[in-house]
């Protein structure tokens, strides 16, 4: 690309349409919300508007709820690596030139299509502690394979199938009322239920679609040449496909972090109401509640900008890590 060091004019032309809309509909409102985060703006006008500087941020640091929901948000991200890895695996399978691949792709994408209400009702039924098929299978395994008898023999209490959406317990034993761990809270509960559901929805969803698109850009001649040279499947993937996928992987990882840090809103709103006892409330849902149910726009903006800072730092880390690992 020598000799084309500065295309500033052309670049300006190409950027113009996007940057105009971007300035008006994104940048402007963002600056506005940043300004608002330094005020006590309340839609309900019980308190007169005033600039409060960093008060909102200070209050937030002391806000027990904020930290609880922050922990929830992070915890619910645990399914992310599985979802991304699974998407890649599926995409590789589906990028083979076999008959009926479009049918499979469509089928895998269906959960992303299907309306949230339908999915919610169905998953609630699946997670039903007494009659749901998931617990039926777990019970069958526990009884059938004599696992409980075995546990009894070695002096442990019997295992019971989890209560799923009704349960505040979680794998790490996070406490309900303050940030911390309690042994009594160790188990499987609503958060795990949401993680599993999330992986199921995401695995054949947008990430798979992106990987599929990226895989079609992998030059087929390279792959075939390598195969002729006798390279194993894994080596072909590792040394030809994977580097070609690097920019897409980078995109997916960055967007997944952003998406899941801002996520959990729909689930909380339609499926769990953020419960039981607030264990599935995420920061995005908290911001919504603060802004549109409690009218504290100022405070909600402060939470949003703290969330921004967290995402920003994570993206920077991704960037550094990505440069090394993804040769990007």
């Amino acid at each position: 690309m020598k000799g084309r060091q500065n295309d500033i004019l052309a670049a300006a032309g190409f950027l113009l349409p996007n940057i105009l809309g971007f300035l008006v509909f994104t940048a402007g409102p963002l600056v506005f919300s940043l300004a608002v985060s330094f005020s006590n703006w309340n839609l309900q006008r019980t308190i007169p508007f005033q600039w409060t500087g960093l008060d909102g941020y200070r209050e937030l640091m002391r806000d027990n709820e904020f930290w609880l929901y922050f922990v929830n948000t992070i915890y619910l991200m645990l399914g992310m690596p599985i979802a991304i890895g699974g998407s890649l695996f599926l995409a590789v399978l589906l990028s083979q030139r076999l008959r009926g691949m479009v049918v499979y792709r469509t089928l895998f994408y269906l959960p992303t299509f299907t309306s949230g209400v339908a999915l919610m009702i169905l998953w609630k039924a699946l997670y039903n502690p007494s009659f749901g098929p998931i617990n039926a299978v777990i019970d069958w395994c526990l009884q059938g394979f004599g696992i409980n008898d075995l546990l009894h023999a070695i002096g442990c209490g019997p295992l019971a199938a989890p209560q799923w959406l009704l349960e505040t317990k979680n794998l790490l034993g996070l406490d309900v009322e303050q940030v911390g761990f309690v042994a009594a809270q160790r188990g499987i509960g609503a958060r795990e239920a949401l993680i599993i559901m999330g992986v199921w929805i995401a695995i054949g969803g947008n990430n798979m679609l992106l990987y599929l698109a990226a895989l079609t850009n992998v030059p087929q001649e390279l792959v075939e040449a390598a195969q002729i040279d006798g390279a194993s499947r894994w080596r072909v993937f590792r040394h030809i496909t994977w580097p070609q996928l690097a920019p897409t992987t980078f995109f997916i990882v960055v967007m997944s972090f952003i998406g899941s840090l801002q996520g959990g809103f729909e689930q909380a709103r339609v499926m769990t109401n953020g419960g039981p006892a607030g264990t599935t409330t995420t920061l995005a849902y908290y911001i919504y509640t603060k802004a549109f149910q409690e009218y504290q726009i100022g405070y909600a903006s402060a939470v949003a900008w703290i969330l921004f800072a967290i995402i920003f730092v994570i993206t920077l880390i991704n960037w550094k890590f990505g440069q090394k690992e993804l040769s990007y």
Partner: protein
Amino acid sequence: MPPMKWLFAASFAVLVVLSCVAWSIKPEATGTGKVPLLWVSDDNPARREQIELFCKLNPQYDLRLDPTNTGMEKVIVQSIAAVGPDLFDCYDGFQLSGYVKSGIAWDITEELRKEIDYDKDVWAAAFPNFVLDGRAYGFPTNVSANAIWYNKDLFDACGLPYPTGPWTWEQFIPIAQKLTVREGGRIKHFGLLCDWWNWRQFVLQWGGDVYNEDGTRCILDTPEAIAGIQFLHDLMYKYNVMPSPADEAAMATAGGWGSGTITYFAGGRGAMAIGGRWWLCTLRTVQQEKKKEGKGLRLGAVEGPHGPVRVFRGYARATLVNKHSPYREQALDFIRYEARKPYNDLINAQADALATVKRFCYTPEYLHNPDFPEEDYNAVWRDVMDYAVPDRVSPFINGQAASRIIEKQLDLVKNDKKPVQKNLQRDPEARARYDEIVRRKNR
């Protein structure tokens, strides 16, 4: 493959054509000379009939519905940009104070007094929705109080006489226990179904409340409030006459009647249920569907059992007028419509809860709707209004913020994770958090 340029150009052409189609099938600016009025309310068949009647009685107006998901977000956001609707719904006292304090609701006290002596003529339970500090900002659309719906078929099957009120929870328990029937390890139907958000009714019936008189303190930690919640808890976990959350989840799949207490009840999963007259909107639909299959759903209603105090939760919805609307004077005609006979009769006939003007509930048509002759329980819904108490709101704290803290604790009670006493009384941290919020608002 055609070059990309062509692809984009073709797409653009198709879109332009589609837009022209959209433009051309735009409806005419209807009713030339009619005043357009916009009402933000939830969209449903009953609401559309109410609008139709208004437009028939007042041909000078073109009243349109702007649907919402019943929160305040829409009206608030629209009003910030000064493009709010002309009329909008208000679902509780806290929303009213929000609208008034934001300067969106218009004080129509004088105009309303010319139409109706609302202090005397309107059910008291509807007041928090439209009256604040003695000023009126709109008019209630409908009102309701909790009583008991019962399923006559299930009573007959158990050989029990239909209940009559007034009665107490002590009288209620043995009957409900007989009506909780197990079949093959599963519960066939429960004695009682009750939406969890009715916990306030139990607090009231045991003489407690959520806030103290002036709204400066949350008093859910008083012995009265704890006793009320404890009883609700016992209905689930001690007397086992009411489904716990786990049971309820089980019903959704096993019985297949959809979630929600109304659908469980309609599906015969409970012999009695705490509810309002507005349930009938749904129950009538179910009855119709069942009729097609040659089955039926025979209903009865009775005043609910009471605790130490004979009170029941009352609630309402009201329509307010937007202060900044250019048509606010005209919008008053809708408020007047809501205070008059045709509208009130329609509400009663639709069973969209209860008409807000008392005297229209004392008519023969109310007691016996000729279209639904089997509905012989209408007097119950009216008479229970005398004991209806609306939810008390604190002017100092956002109801949503308070309920997030309160519900979190109650969630633990509901799922039997923590003893009631410990939860409400010995949680100094929640207590302190709540008081802190009130203090801050008070400042």
